[in-house]
Structures are given as C-alpha cells and as structure tokens.
C-alpha cells in the first residue's frame, strides 16, 4: 500500500512539472516583432505586464511575498499575510456568530416538530438567497463595510449548519433517546450527553460545508467592500494589472481554504462513531 502512495506522489509531481512547463512555454514573450500595432504605439510599446506571466515570475513573486508576509506600507501596500489574516478574521467572526445561532435553533427545530413546521417556510425562502444580495441592505443598516462583510459571512454560513443540526437532532435513533429516558435524564442532560454526541457527525458535516461557502463568499464580499482582505487584494492587483500577484493570491486563497477544510475535517474525525 505504501507503494501506492509513492506512485501517487510521483505522478502528482510529474503532473505539476508538466503543467508548469506548458504554462512557461505558452507565456514566452513573442519573437522580435515586425512592428508595433497602432494600439501598442498608443500604449507606448509592448507592455510586458499585459501578458499572463510565466510561472517563474509567479514563483519569484511568491518567494518575495512569503519571505515577508506581514509588512505594512500603507493602505494599499500590505503583506499577503496581513490581507489573509483580515479575511480569516472576518470569516471566523461571521462563522462563529452563525454557529451561536444555528446550533441552538437547529436543536430546537430538530427536537420539536412544531417549531420545524413553523420555521421551515422562512428557512426555505431565505436559504436560496445569494449571500451577496444582502450586501446593500447590510451596508445601509449597519453603515460599516467591515461589519457588513462579516454579516454576509454570517448569513451564508448559517443555513448548512442550521439544517444539518436540525436533521441530525431529529434523526437521533429513538433507541438512544429511550436509553436516556429510562435513565431519567432531564432534557438538558439528554441534549448534552446523548443527542449532541449522536448528532455531532451530521452537525460537523454542516459546519464543514459552511466554512467552505464562507471562504468562497468572503473573496467576493471583500471585492465589493474594499479596504482590506484577500478579496480586495486580488481586485486591487488586477486594477494594477499585476497579474503575477493575482495568480499568487488565487493560489493562496486555495491554500487557506484547504487548511480551513482540513481543520474541520479533523474535528469531524474526532466526533465520528461507528454503529
């Protein structure tokens, strides 16, 4: 089985080299031009930056950025680490706020068919709304761009958590609930010692979906509100036509998203059980 891992790793590395090689070749500067087009003359010659940069340029930039990720040279020139930290901070704040509401309400809905029936129509209407559609309303009501971005994260991460919690709680095996009943556990002790651990894997699946969505949404939200954050950074570098930075930050978005998912995956492992 170890040989499978080794072979997979070798194959992965070969794919990477192949892809980087193709990319490098496709982005070579053109051979000596016969002359400048009218547009190029207007723009003052062939602009190096207007082409997709080769991987070597991106790697060079990544090296420079990652060797000093937290520098701060004014509003429009902050290290990638600082920008990512802003985004992660917003995601976690909105996410934790969503958790604080979704878990108890999900429990309530899961335990009470009455509450489920009463609240279900609202959930069904609110859930399919694109989180960014809330942005104008949030900006108007909250009057603060940072808090509005956090609110958008809150609203997009609440639904998977809420629905999975409700589903997990409602589907706890009746046998286990009966065990709690025959041992005279009160409602709170039953919730904590039986229903929560029984529903935990389902709840964590919802939390994992939520963190993924939140990370997707924060980039778009920060492009809208501006100021700080990785979303703003990507947009800003695009406006600067610094495509190497754009590509580099895209990769960083992927890496951080993966780390967030990995963390939730680990948590999921902790609460899993086999029947």
């Amino acid at each position, binding site marked *: 089985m170890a040989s499978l891992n080794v072979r997979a790793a070798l194959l992965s590395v070969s794919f990477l080299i192949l892809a980087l090689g193709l990319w490098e070749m496709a982005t070579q500067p053109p051979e000596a031009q016969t002359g400048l087009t009218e547009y190029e003359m207007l723009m003052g010659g062939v602009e190096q930056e207007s082409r997709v940069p080769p991987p070597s340029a991106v790697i060079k930039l990544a090296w420079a950025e990652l060797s000093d990720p937290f520098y701060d040279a004014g509003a429009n020139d902050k290290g990638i680490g600082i920008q990512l930290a802003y985004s992660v901070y917003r995601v976690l704040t909105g996410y934790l706020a969503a958790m604080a509401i979704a878990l108890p309400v999900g429990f309530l809905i899961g335990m009470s068919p009455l509450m489920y029936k009463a609240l279900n129509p609202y959930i069904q209407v609110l859930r399919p709304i694109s989180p960014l559609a809330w942005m104008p309303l949030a900006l108007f009501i909250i009057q603060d761009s940072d808090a509005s971005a956090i609110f958008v994260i809150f609203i997009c991460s609440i639904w998977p958590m809420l629905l999975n919690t409700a589903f997990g709680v409602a589907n706890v095996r009746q046998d286990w609930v*009966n065990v709690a009943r025959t041992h005279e556990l009160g409602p709170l002790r039953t919730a904590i010692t039986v229903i929560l651990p029984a529903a935990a894997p389902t709840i964590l699946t919802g939390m994992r979906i939520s963190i993924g969505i939140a990370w997707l949404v924060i980039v778009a939200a920060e492009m809208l509100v501006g100021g700080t954050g990785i979303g703003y950074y990507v947009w800003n570098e695009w406006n600067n036509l610094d495509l190497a930075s754009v590509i580099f930050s895209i990769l960083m978005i992927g890496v951080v998203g993966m780390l967030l998912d990995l963390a939730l995956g680990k948590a999921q492992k902790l609460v899993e059980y*086999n029947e």
Partner: protein
Amino acid sequence: MSKSFLEVDGLSKVYPDGQGGELTVFEDIRFALEKGEFVCIIGHSGCGKSTILNVLAGLDEASAGNVVMNGKEIKGPGLERGVVFQNYSLLPWKTTLNNIVFAVRARWPEWSKDKVKEHSERYLKMVGLDHALNRKPSQLSGGMRQRVSIARAFATQPELLLLDEPFGALDALTRGVIQDELVKIWEETRQTVFMITHDVDEAILLSDRIFLMSNGPNARIAESVKVDIPHPRARATIFQNPAYHKTRDYLVDFLVNRSGSALPEKDGTPKIVEPAQGVAQATPASADAETESDSESESDTAARAVNA
C-alpha cells in the same frame, strides 16, 4: 387490593387500522408479579408483547388500563425499572466501561468517580467482559454487546428488569453461553425479571412462571404456566428433569394448537396451569435415581469436555 409487587390491570392497546376503523392489538391484560420472580412471556409475533413491555417501562402508553408498582402507578420511564432492548441500544460513541458508567452515574449521582468506576467494572466482570473495558461497541461481537447491555441493566439494580427478546439476534451457541450467565447473575441478585422470548427452552430454563399469549388482534394473556423445577438450574442438566418435558410439551402444544382460541379466566386473570404437577411423586423411585445418576454422568462428561 394492591398486594403484589407489580399489578397490571385491564391493559389494552388500540391503533387506527388505516381504514378509518380501530385495531385492538391486545385487551384486558391482567397479571401480577411478585418480588424476586422471573417471568417470561411467550406468544406469536405481533400479539403485542413488546408493547406490553414498553408500557411497563413507561416508554409507551396503553389505551386503557393501568400498571401499579409498589403501590405507585407507572406514568413514565424510571430508574427503578431497567430495560434490555433487543438491539442492545448501547451508545456507540462511548466505550464499554463508559456505557455502564453512564447508567451508574444516572442512578447514583452522589457517588464519587472512583466508586462509580469500581461498581461498573464489577458488573462488567460478572458478564466476563473485564478485558474489553475500553473498546467501543462497534468493536464488539453481537454477543458481547448484549452482555454489556445486560451488565448495564443489572448495574443500576432496578427493582424490575424488563428484557425484550435479549437473545433474539444471537446464534444458538452464544445464546446458550449468555443464558448461563444470566442464570448466574440472577441467582446472585434475585432481581424481579419480566422477559419476552420466542424460545420455549429458554423460557423454561429461566422462569418461575411463563405467560402464554393468545394471537392478536384482541390478544390476551390466557395462561400462566408454573415451571416446577428447582433453582439453581443449569442448561446442561435441566433436560434430565421429568418436569422439564411435561412443561415443554404443554407450551409447544399451546403455541401450535391452542393459541388461536385460548382464553383467560372469566375475571380476566390468566388460567393457572401446572403441567408438571405430581411428576416427582408419579415417577418411580428407581427411575428417579436413574435420572439423577444420568445427570451426574452427563455433567461429568460436560466438565471433562470443558477441561479438554
């Protein structure tokens, strides 16, 4: 009037039959249990045994009638009644030991951690599982899981133990071993037990009395059969007792030929039957001696087989 430990009075269960009418699963169930008795109930599938047991456990409600235990009416589940479910119902995220600790802590919240642990371990030892304390239920065989479940029920020392086909899902070999264990624990604790089974031999081995249910709908507990075999009993030797065969024949005949039409006494209480009455006296002394020596040699062989 309430003199017995547990009195079941006029219990019935009615479900809608799905066509606008009503379906009476069982009706006017009346019986009493005395403290320290082991009673099994046998009846064909669907006659309502589990429902009756769940009503006693307080997990289900009867449509009519009531149950009084120790002079108090049963209204919901309680720690003075322990339940062993057919599907074990262990909490799969807890280890074997913690499944017992969970129950013991619920029963005696004032106990110290050490005392709870020690008590739980003692009961796991009784069922021979002291080597599997830290395994999860998913890592145990079906037989081992059911042992944990039995240990959990006994560990809380309930006044009444309710067992719903505890061995139904086990193979014959494992079933036999755990039956022996149950006999052993029961001889030690003499708890009051009410148990559902489909197995006539199991019922005779374990019970003092066996309730026979007629078929549903409108099922009744028609008869109460006395098992006249002294304790302690053992699976290997019980076949030697002439009362065993009389009782067994009677039970099988009921289940095969009479369960459709059998009725209780006019007042609704089960007819009391003693199929083995007089067997001991009727058996000639020589035959009696023979069976005894037979049983001895049989248990000798069994012992040798175990030692080998």
